[in-house]
């Protein structure tokens, strides 16, 4: 029961504290929703790794099945699925996201 695409996704999530599956790259996002999440993470100063789903159709579909979530971007922190653009934005606006990253030790307390 091994799915090679799921294995690759799992490895990416295991190897990076903050992993963003997105369209485009952090330097050049190709979708407004992906761009928003990149902007929030950059603003917070959280180091993150990205996977460009547009470069790999297997991952593009695979990440939707893996998370059981139909849209991209998708943010994982320490193996846990946080959400997509709406949830990241909401958590950022309420300050929860900063607290969350601090708790995880990924952000220096201001």
């Amino acid at each position, binding site marked *: 029961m091994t799915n090679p695409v799921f294995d690759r996704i799992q490895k990416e999530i295991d190897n990076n504290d903050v992993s963003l599956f997105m*369209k485009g790259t952090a330097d050049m996002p*190709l*979708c*407004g*929703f992906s761009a928003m999440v990149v902007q929030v993470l950059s603003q917070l100063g959280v180091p993150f790794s990205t996977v460009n789903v547009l470069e790999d159709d297997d991952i593009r579909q695979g990440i939707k099945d893996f998370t*059981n*979530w*139909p*849209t991209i971007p998708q943010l994982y922190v320490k193996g846990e*699925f*946080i*959400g*997509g*653009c*709406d*949830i990241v934005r*909401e*958590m950022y606006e309420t300050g929860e996201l900063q607290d969350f990253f601090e708790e995880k030790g990924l952000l220096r307390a201001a």
Partner: protein
Amino acid sequence: MKDRIEAVLREAFAPSLLEVINDSARHHGHAGDDGSGESHFTVKIVSEAFVGQSRLQRQRAVFSALVDEMNSIHALSIDAAASQDRN
């Protein structure tokens, strides 16, 4: 499509507030614009069905109610709350 999304969500959540907005025009010519004029939507929904649920659970619930519709649209932005005072 807008009507279909509304009908599905009414049926699934009996919302006290429901607003479905077609944002497609704002995304005209961007990635994901399929020219149908029905590619991007925003849903604002308030329902008692969401009481005690996390944001993730609420969004999952909305996505799973709209599983068929998600196949034909590109993006769905969701603002789901349990009550209008947003607790």
